[in-house]
């Protein structure tokens, strides 16, 4: 019955949308709760794009509707997406911070004739679940694999991986391990920690005893990262010269003031740093800081949202405001543009974003603020995660 209603609603929308002059975009993300700061960044990126590009495409006005899923909750995410499509008549779905939330929505897309633009969720497989998914963020594989190459370049033979025991953590572990061993290194031990770990001292002792020259770590950003980095320093690993390697989630800009000196010298690889030096990024950061209110809260999901809006605007231009998911998605396959993070394009095969990955070091600026200093660029990186899964 539900399907029938959905189909009927979709059919009505199909006929009606062509003449509509308001095009609605439904954004699902964590706008309250422990991850509210990430949702705030979605909104800042979207607002920044609308502020710089206007809210009109031709005669059509763009309207963005927000729906809140405070924590990873696939059922809630699906229900809200359905409500957006059926009741609000959105032509595009976007946002999605957590992988399970995005996965839960993919079965709706074909029937609803709605493209989904993933602005954060970073598990490789999402794009394979529906031909109408396009992603403008990154994958954990994409940001972690280059770190293994860096480690080898710097002469590290033996490394240890330490990750939080959940999907993205396991992804990061596999990405690092696979690449590191392909390059001739050896991962001496892989530790998976429970998500609720508060005291990381025991873990650091194990890292120390393992005799590894470097530790590759992945934890969800936020309170745990702070404890982890502090434990790394306090257990004397920094002094012992064990290099700290991680994807950039760990040193996201909104956490850096709290991490402070403890984070100095940590090497991370990531797709975006707020300190990225380009005219596009300076314009973006200015607009996004204005949109978010408190500049200290700006972080990487904002750029995923900003570029997500760019993709949606191109889709709307290509379809002339008519609801046609297939045409919309086809139009952005291979689309290339200059993003605030650098040159990017949508891979026509995977519909995932191809982008530069940067090696960064946490540094202290002349004004006393901490930032991610880009020191090396890996150009045009696709997502190695899909290939690895095959």
């Amino acid at each position, binding site marked *: 019955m539900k399907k029938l209603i959905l189909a009927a609603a979709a059919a009505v929308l199909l006929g009606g949308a062509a003449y509509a002059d308001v095009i609605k975009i439904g954004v699902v993300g964590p706008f309250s*709760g422990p991850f509210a700061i990430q949702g*705030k960044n979605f909104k800042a990126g979207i607002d920044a794009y609308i502020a710089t590009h206007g809210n009109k495409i031709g005669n059509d006005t763009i309207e963005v509707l927000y729906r809140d899923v405070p924590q990873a909750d696939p059922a809630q995410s699906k229900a809200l997406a359905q409500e957006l499509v059926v009741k609000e008549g959105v032509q595009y779905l976007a946002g999605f911070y957590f992988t399970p939330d995005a996965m839960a929505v993919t079965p709706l897309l074909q029937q609803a004739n709605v493209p989904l633009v993933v602005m954060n969720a970073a598990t490789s497989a999402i794009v394979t679940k529906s031909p109408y998914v396009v992603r403008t963020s990154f994958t954990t594989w994409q940001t972690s694999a280059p770190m293994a190459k860096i480690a080898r370049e710097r002469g590290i033979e033996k490394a240890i991986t330490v990750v939080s025991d959940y999907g993205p953590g396991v992804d990061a572990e596999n990405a690092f391990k696979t690449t590191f061993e392909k390059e001739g290194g050896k991962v001496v031990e892989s530790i998976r920690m429970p998500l609720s770990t508060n005291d990381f*001292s025991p873990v650091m002792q194990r890292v120390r005893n393992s005799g590894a020259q470097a530790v590759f770590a992945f934890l969800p950003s*936020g*309170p745990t990262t*702070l*404890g982890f980095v502090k434990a790394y320093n306090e*257990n*004397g690993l920094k002094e012992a010269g064990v290099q700290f390697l991680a994807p950039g989630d760990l040193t996201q800009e909104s956490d850096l003031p*709290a991490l402070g000196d403890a984070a100095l010298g940590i090497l991370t690889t990531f797709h975006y740093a707020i300190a990225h030096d380009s005219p596009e990024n300076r314009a973006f950061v200015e607009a996004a800081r204005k949109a978010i209110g408190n500049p200290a809260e700006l972080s990487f999901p904002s750029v995923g949202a900003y570029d997500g809006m760019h993709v949606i605007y191109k889709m709307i231009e290509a379809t002339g405001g008519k609801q046609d998911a297939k045409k919309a998605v086809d139009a952005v396959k291979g689309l290339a543009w200059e993003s605030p993070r650098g040159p990017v394009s949508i891979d026509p095969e995977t519909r995932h974003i191809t982008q530069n990955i940067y090696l960064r070091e946490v540094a202290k600026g002349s004004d006393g603020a901490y930032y991610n200093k880009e020191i090396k660029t890996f150009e045009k990186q696709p997502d190695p995660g899909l290939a690895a899964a095959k």
Partner: protein
Amino acid sequence: MQVFFSIGVDALAYGMVLFIISIGLSVTMGLMRVVNLAHGAFAMIGGYIASYAARDLGLGYGFAIILAVIGTIVIAIPLERFLYRRIYGAPELTQVLMTIGITFCVIGLANYVFGPTLKTIPLPADLQGPVNLGFRTIAAHKLFAIGCGVAVALGLWFLIERTSFGVKLRASVDNTAMAASLGVRTRIVYAASFALAVGLAAFGGVIGAELLPVEPYYALRYMVTFLVVVSVGGAGSIPGALIACLLLGAIDTTGRYLVPEYGEFFFYLAVIAIVWVFPRGLLGRAK
């Protein structure tokens, strides 16, 4: 052997931090018979005040701790007067509903006033950095936390078992009407013990901030751990809470050290086993 000592030191430090934060809850739940789910919220308020005092006002660490304890008590006094006083002796469900409501309000306010980002409490130079113990290094602030835990345990034991206030408190709890008719001003005793519990929460929030960083969801994030400590130790028992913290700290740390892939399995297995054998907790008093 080295591994054994290494685990021992970590377990002691973690257990002591748990003890300082949870003991206030043991006082409210065991002595005052209030299931105070807002305990974590008070610890968080203490952490925020200390962070504000030390980071934004530039006060010393010691001052920040004192200000946090006093400030949190000042915030808690009207709450006690207007809200908690209504639920003394009320059914547990009523108490849970009201205190969880307070927790959500505090989370919302903290998010609004201080923002969702992490707040740190800068440590004085003496407490920063590692200390060499010979067989390994440990953070200086962890040694400080161990010392604070011992001091809190001794101080509380003395206060409750050896002072006239302690006698009045125990009398008021066991039989309010009789204590009142003997001239004990039970309302004041209750208010004072509530203030004590809140002050301990704030103190623990500040001392433990290096392990449990201050952010708006602090109030809920660690609530289960605090409740576990109280139920394993036996509500109201100071030695019980101390033993529970050291035991659970040891099990948790050993598990993480040797078999981290099992996650919290051993921790909760131990909790189930202890509560099964000692339904009132290790040193809990019969009701």
